């Protein structure tokens, strides 16, 4: 099923300091169903831009290329339609929503997605049961549900909250944008568990990371190295270990 996610010649730019800045310069990437792929690359190479572009952030303008997701044109969809279609982005810096209760937010999101997928909405009791089960498996305090979305959360709590959302929204493509950054080993394992629990023949993941650490828990299928807005090298899990040891320098030299 090679048409699960297919990114072809993707170019994207962002408006910065009054001018346009091209960040993605022809990304080609295919992720078959059921696989877990990893993108690594130096800072500023376009990893987060790729994540945002796949999730539909408006300030990134696609200038060329295409993205097909399960046979649909992903780029033609609104962000919420992408979520309903099964795309989930775990944010590198989750956004704070003052005054918005976390449980209420989760339920609104879950029911929006269920509605769009033609599934029955969950009532308050059902939802509470589901969410409590999920928080327990992520070792989260129920108290987090009563707080406002990400407001006053520690870095680790924010990341766990992202994984909680992922668990509840049941995506078929999860994009994790440096979800491991700033996490201690225990939190790292929880994040990995969250992903591993979702692994299935119809679930794929794209993990953006700098470190081998997270990959120890994830058993990835493919590793891609990104530089200057393109994928410059792809390979098996051994590629990640090589980068961990030697850095990006050799790849960059090759690509230059």
């Amino acid at each position, binding site marked *: 099923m090679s048409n699960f996610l297919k990114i072809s010649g993707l170019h994207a730019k962002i408006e910065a300091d009054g001018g346009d800045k091209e960040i993605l310069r022809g990304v080609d990437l295919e992720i078959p169903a059921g696989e877990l792929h990893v993108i690594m690359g130096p800072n500023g190479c376009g990893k987060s831009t790729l994540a945002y572009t796949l*999730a*539909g*952030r*408006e*300030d990134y303008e696609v200038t060329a290329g295409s993205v097909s997701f399960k046979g649909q044109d992903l780029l033609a969809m*609104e*962000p*919420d339609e*992408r*979520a*309903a279609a099964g795309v*989930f*982005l775990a*944010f590198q810096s*989750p*956004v704070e*929503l*003052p*005054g*918005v209760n976390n449980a*209420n*937010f989760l339920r*609104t*999101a*879950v029911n*929006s*997605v269920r509605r*769009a997928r033609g599934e029955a909405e969950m009532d*308050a009791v059902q939802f509470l049961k589901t969410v409590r089960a999920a928080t327990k498996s992520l070792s989260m305090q129920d108290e987090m549900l009563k707080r*406002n979305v990400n407001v006053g959360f520690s870095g680790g709590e924010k990341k766990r909250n992202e994984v909680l*959302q992922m668990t509840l*929204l049941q995506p078929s493509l999860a994009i994790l944008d440096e979800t491991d950054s700033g996490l201690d080993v225990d939190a790292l394992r929880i994040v990995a568990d969250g992903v591993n629990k979702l692994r299935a023949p119809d679930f794929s993941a794209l993990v953006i990371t700098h470190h081998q650490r997270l990959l120890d828990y994830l058993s990835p299928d493919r590793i891609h190295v990104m530089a200057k807005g393109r994928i410059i090298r792809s390979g098996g899990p051994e590629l990640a270990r090589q980068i961990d040891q030697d850095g990006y320098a050799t790849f960059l030299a090759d690509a230059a």
Partner: protein
Amino acid sequence: MPAVTETREQIEKLGQSTYRWGFETDIEMDIAPKGLDEDTIRLISARKEEPEWLLEWRLAAFRQWQKMEEPEWAKVAYPKIDYQDLHYYAAPKKKPGPKSLDEVDPELLRTYEKLGIPLHEQAMLAGVEPEEGAEPRLPIAVDAVFDSVSVATTFRKTLQEAGVIFCPISEAVRDYPELVRKYLGSVVPAGDNFFSALNSAVFTDGSFVYVPAGVRCPMELSTYFRINARNTGQFERTLIIVEDRGSVSYLEGCTAPMRDENQLHAAVVELVAMEDASIKYSTVQNWYPGDENGRGGIYNFVTKRGACRGARARISWTQVETGSAVTWKYPSCILQGEGSVGEFYSVAVTNNFQQADTGTKMIHIGRNTRSTIIAKTISAGRSDSTYRGLVRMMPKASGARNFTQCDSLLIGDQCGAHTVPYIENRNMSARIEHEATTSRISEDQMFYCRSRGLSEEDAVGLIVNGFCKDVLKELPMEFAVEAQKLLAISLEGSVG
């Protein structure tokens, strides 16, 4: 297209179809001829069979009013009102002031039913899920005011047993003249301002509440105001008195039919809280705001003021203002009693061509008095919204404290949001803190919500409700749910 641009466009498409309370009730009315002179006032007073002192009080107010000029300092613009081109008395013909619900015109009962107001005592507002850990709900007693007169007041017997008086003010004039005479105009003197003088001259009805010493009112009291008749000014008068250690929570709601012409509403509300007494006054103001071209809508010029006369008295104003074409309203607290507390929590939403100039005054007179002001302003469409507030620490207000937070949210680039606080401190040990912000919904927040599957409307709704949360949580629960829906509807097109 950025989310906010789209939101803006959707708001611009917003039509008058969204005002869901705009129907008209066909009912036989007793209407005074247009115009205002001393004879009009004598007629109103006679219709209401008022005592001589009240007629004199009205006439004195009228003479003051004639010498006054309509205020122009507020940031609102509207064509000059012709005060001679209005009816000052309109009442449903059939049995004004019925003794029981059975006597109420069934057409009126249907009107209130349609508005979702429970006039049957067994009725409760449906569809409300109590939040975990929320206080058990009190039942609600309702006084329904239709145009100028009270048409029904529920639960009166239960309240009487507790010693609480809750009745139309016209009835209180008859049954409790000494109370009314003592307190009427004692917080808002007739000549306080142009509109209070006008109201004092021509007020027709409103609610009266008296809570005796030591009594906690066993239920929420509520007045539901409905303007129906054409070309009629509505001038209701509310007076709430709570004696030592008593407490009451009072709610006020209001709607009106959609009409092309503007209608005037100039109410006066007076609150008196004695030692250790507490009054919580909540308003959900949803008068007809006019259509998307700024045609029609209510002019809402209201004077609301509470006096904390006793030590440790507490008066709390909460308002959700979504309606009216023009709003001019500053619910205030005179903090006289030592350690008394004033609170003002406000959400004001304007859309299309609405204008709102609203805020509060906190006058700290006594020692260790405290006040809190939380004002949230949301402007959309081509509307203008102003927070105008005064915090004054008098020389004897040692140890007094005020905290003010004013936040404005702009949706679209054709609206305006303004903040005009007056901060006056004449006591060195008094402390005033004021913060204000103006911003718009951030693209980051919108994208985050939408990437979790929320539609644009739901996302805006969620963020706006979050923005208003500190105020909404002050409302009694039934009203909070109502208010949340109202916020959504007021910004419909973007909020769903």
